[in-house]
């Protein structure tokens, strides 16, 4: 078994047994939902339904109800799309990349981070679909035989690459998530008291029995899926950035975009994970499994990716000057000092300065501070996309076409609505699904659980848990 240094903080606090883990995770599902859950669910549902109403109005009336104009043909819609896709990057990164690196702390957070990913990608996918105006013709993005002289979709277009990237990402994440959920559903099924929940969870658990051969396959499929999901995560946001980078618009036409977007996505995704996780651990009493150490690890990721994003901003500025292209130079001067200076300033403050505070150990281990920064980062990342999209467009080549963008209330309604729907999904998930990967957390109990790590000896000395063994390893 893998040995862990005694000085390393345990990942599972308290004296938990395998059974305790099961009980702790299943309890919120088996108990009645607390009143707070109903209140939050009600609020999220109302906001979500308002968003659905705005979308219905948009589809009925036309894209003109958005605040777009002749110069700015893309604004809040694509900003929100990129924002949600970015948030959707943390889940698969946590479960796939951290699995390949054998990071055990991922196990407490990967399930809910992946759920967050899937719901965020749902929200993201909605924007290009409603932007079509005629939602019911959405299937035209697929290369299907048709009556227009077999006119195919354009495989040279980054917008079509996006269709393939987002749908692959969504479906592969969904599969990855569900494969991991099956054994945990089996645990809930075998504990279920009422006939209805027994029936529901036995359907969801696909008849999982936990045979040795099945676990053998389970471990391999998790590893291989992680292996192929890792390049997928990086490819998806690279392709999203191609939507801009392959154009000739000054401010978009930049080769730095793919890595810069990927880092920004991980940055905002982890921030959203922090926001959700800090509330969830408290509300569902999972403090023993998701604690300061996990928060600190995630804050370090936020700090690193935030710094990379900061370097990318500065590189962009430098290269625009160094390129000697007048239009490129103007695009960046206009961003920083033009009428949208406030958006640029918010982006810089939220994304470059705030994560630097995480260098202080005290701050990155403070839960309240982390919660505030996580929200600040998400606001900053929304502004980043707004700055890239709107400020590059609003001053066209012809000064006679210069305009400003003012969002309509439908713009705002659709955006706020997706946040509501996202929380509707997430709250349902927290209520009916195991929010912690039960079977995975149990595998690290003996190597990273507090009671096992700090016990002087507990009867299985030959397996190397004793303190003496660990101390020898440290020297």
């Amino acid at each position, binding site marked *: 078994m893998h040995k862990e240094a005694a000085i390393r903080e345990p990942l599972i606090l308290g004296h938990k047994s395998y059974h305790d883990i099961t009980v702790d995770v299943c309890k919120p599902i088996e108990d009645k939902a607390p009143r707070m859950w109903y209140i939050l669910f009600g609020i999220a549902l109302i906001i979500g339904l308002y968003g659905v109403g705005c979308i219905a109005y948009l589809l009925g009336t036309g894209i003109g109800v958005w605040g777009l104009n002749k110069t700015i043909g893309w604004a809040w819609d694509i900003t929100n799309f990129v924002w949600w896709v970015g948030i959707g990057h943390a889940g698969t990164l946590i479960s796939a990349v951290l699995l390949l690196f054998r990071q055990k702390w991922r196990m407490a957070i990967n399930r809910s981070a992946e759920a967050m990913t899937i719901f965020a990608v749902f929200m993201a996918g909605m924007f290009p679909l409603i932007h079509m105006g005629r939602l019911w013709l959405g299937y035209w993005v697929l290369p299907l035989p048709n009556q227009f002289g077999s006119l195919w979709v354009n495989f040279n277009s980054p917008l079509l690459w996006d269709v393939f990237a987002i749908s*692959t990402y969504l479906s*592969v994440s969904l599969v990855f998530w569900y494969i991991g959920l099956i054994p945990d559903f089996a645990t809930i099924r075998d504990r279920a008291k009422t006939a209805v929940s027994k029936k529901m969870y036995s359907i969801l658990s696909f008849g999982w029995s936990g045979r040795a051969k099945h676990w053998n396959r389970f471990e391999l499929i998790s590893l291989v899926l992680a292996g192929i999901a890792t390049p997928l995560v990086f490819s998806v946001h690279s392709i999203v950035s191609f939507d801009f980078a392959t154009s000739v618009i000054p401010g978009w036409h930049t080769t730095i975009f793919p890595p810069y977007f990927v880092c920004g996505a991980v940055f905002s995704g982890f921030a959203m994970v922090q926001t959700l996780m800090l509330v969830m651990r408290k509300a569902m009493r999972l403090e023993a499994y998701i604690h300061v150490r996990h928060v600190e690890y995630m804050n370090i990721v936020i700090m690193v990716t935030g710094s990379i994003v900061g370097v990318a901003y500065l590189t962009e500025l430098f290269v625009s000057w160094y390129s000697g292209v007048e239009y490129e130079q103007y695009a960046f001067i206009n961003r920083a000092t033009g009428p949208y200076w406030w958006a640029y300033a918010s982006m810089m403050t939220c994304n470059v300065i705030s994560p630097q505070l995480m260098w202080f150990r005290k701050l990155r281990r403070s839960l309240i501070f982390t919660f505030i920064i996580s929200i600040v980062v998400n606001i900053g990342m929304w502004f980043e996309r707004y700055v890239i999209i709107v400020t590059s467009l609003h001053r066209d080549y012809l000064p006679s076409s210069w305009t400003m963008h003012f969002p309509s209330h439908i713009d705002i309604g659709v955006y706020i609505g997706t946040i509501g729907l996202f929380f509707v999904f997430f709250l349902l998930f927290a209520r009916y699904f195991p929010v912690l990967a039960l*079977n995975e957390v149990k595998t690290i109990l003996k190597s990273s659980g507090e009671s096992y790590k700090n016990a002087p000896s507990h009867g299985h000395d030959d397996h190397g848990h004793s303190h003496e063994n660990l101390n020898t390893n440290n020297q």
Partner: protein
Amino acid sequence: MAEKVIYAMYDDDDVLKDGAKLLVAKGVKISDVFSPFPIHGIDPIIGIKNTRLGIVAFLFGITGLLLATYGMRFFMITDWPMNIGGKPNETYMDNMLAFIPVTFEFTVFCAAHGMAITYLLRNKTLPGMPALNPDPRTTDDKFVIELKLSENIQFSEEELNSMLKETGIIEIDQKEIN
């Protein structure tokens, strides 16, 4: 045909692993182990071969790669060559760089889904399948070794029971399964 099986229950994965080693050394054939999470290192002890699902994923991935290549060559080169800014579109190679993202995505799509579907079919875990674990606690914190009497004809039932009892079990049960 009904078959007699013995289920021996443990409350620790390491105890089960040591017990299984001991039993196998004595020549007992263990037909299966049920556990709430993967017990690392149990597979070679009870003679379970490593899964070949990795090969399946590779084959599905290759299929996806070829399909995507063939499809895009047909759509963009053969059937309706699109003139985009006068860029060359005579052959697949002329245009290939633009096809790489979709080729990659489709390869991953086929590999992941093909592998996942094979996994569910091979495990016989599909919606509505019955759970076959001998005890509901095996998905919580208990670990069970399954012995089939027909596979251990050199031992009598009593011999098997007494050998199991030496390995630190907490419960023992006998059932007839089909």
